[in-house]
């Protein structure tokens, strides 16, 4: 008797949830509606024109991810594959100057409408990652990269991995929060090499 009531109750609750979720979907705006509201709500300013509201396929798919609704494995795989194809490695050494890399990692400006578009962008690594031990003002959105080279080994393969990850993080991890610094033209080739050196040079403070 008690069990039966419980079962009936559960069925009702489930039915209720299903109805609720249908209602959700019914009232959820279409992607076109969202886009047209955004276009009516933003204005071009400085270097940030309205085309920044246009999404590529990766941005479109990653906008559908929710805390309780991760990306489907096959979609994640499709993103990784398509982004792998964007990777471009420079000829020769991938190691720049860690001192310049540290400056790039500290700099938070670049690509905002308030920034001078003739100045190089920073990577703002410290906003999200721990790097050199001496810098205590670091964020935690990304993993700690302290002793990255020392831990992973100072190998050419690891340099290549680091460069690729900075160039396009989504070639390794679909819908990563990290910007695609090379693919989206945020950093130059030399800047990315300098960041690789910050991570991979045995003399870099990251590896002390």
């Amino acid at each position, binding site marked *: 008797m008690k069990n039966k009531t419980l079962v009936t109750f559960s069925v009702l609750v489930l039915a209720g949830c299903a109805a609720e979720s249908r209602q959700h979907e019914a009232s959820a705006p279409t992607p076109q509606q969202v886009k047209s*509201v955004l276009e009516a709500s933003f204005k*071009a300013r400085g270097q940030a024109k309205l085309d*920044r509201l246009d999404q590529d396929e990766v941005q479109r798919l990653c906008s559908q*991810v929710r805390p309780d609704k991760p990306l489907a494995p096959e979609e994640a795989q499709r993103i990784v594959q398509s982004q792998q194809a964007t990777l471009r490695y420079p000829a020769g050494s991938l190691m720049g100057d860690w001192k310049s890399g540290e400056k790039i990692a500290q700099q938070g400006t670049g690509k905002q*409408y*308030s920034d001078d578009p003739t100045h190089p962008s920073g990577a703002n690594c410290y906003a999200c990652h721990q790097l050199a031990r001496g810098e*205590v003002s670091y964020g935690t959105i990304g993993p700690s990269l302290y002793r990255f080279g020392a831990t992973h080994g100072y190998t050419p393969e690891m340099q290549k991995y680091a460069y690729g990850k900075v160039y396009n993080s989504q070639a390794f991890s679909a819908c990563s929060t990290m910007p695609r610094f090379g693919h989206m033209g945020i950093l130059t080739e030399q800047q990315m090499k300098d960041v690789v050196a910050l991570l991979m040079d045995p003399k870099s403070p990251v590896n002390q």
Partner: protein
Amino acid sequence: MTHTWITAAALAAGFFAAGLATAQDKDSTSKQIERYREALAEGNPAELWEARGEALWKEKRGPKGASLERCDLGLGPGIVKGAYTVLPKYFADTGKVEDLESRLVTCMVSLQGFTPGEAKKDPFGGPGKKVPMDALVAYIASESRGMAMHVSIADPKEREAYELGRQIFFYRGGPHDFACASCHGAEGKRIRLQDLPNLTNPADARKAYTTWPAYRVSQGEVRSMQWRLNDCFRQQRFPELEFTSPASIALSLYLARTAEGGVMDAPAIKR
């Protein structure tokens, strides 16, 4: 008052320096910042904005030489007490969902006779420029201190704005692929030393939403929710979010609704 303020600032600077020196432990860093905020809260300059806002509310202004005292902020004409807790909401007279700032624009136009352009001309204060909007926002928010947030999504237009706001929250775009959710979609994260509320989580959303508008120590200004959203999108590398735009109101309603039940404590004081 000034003396208290300076002492608080000096103490705060001390806390902050101590915090930086021993910041290996992030919990202790958070605690230091919390103490810094407590020290600052003893003398919140937002009081000056609140007082100016109350005077502006009652002052006869605009081509019609009328005050805002008959403005309906959601609880009926002239009711300021608690009004911030029900905003944004649907207003039948305009047929739109409006937040506090857009509703003030509506009343400045209908009651005082300003053009919409005039009413929206100076949305945010800056160095050497104090604007009526910031003061009115500070005053009206302060009249909801201690009261619980209760934003409706019963009306279809409110429901629509809520759903739209949620989609915008997760909308990734621009050269950095950022969405609101990039920084505000997970628990216990920081940018540099700044704690980030997870705005999809009601507990965090309440804590964050109920402390805006806020006096920003680093800027010497009271900042509204409209400003908060505008500046987030700047850092997201988006174009500029227009003042009182539909996207800004939808996003605000989504955040306010997620903060349902949170007790208003604004204008707060922040770094």
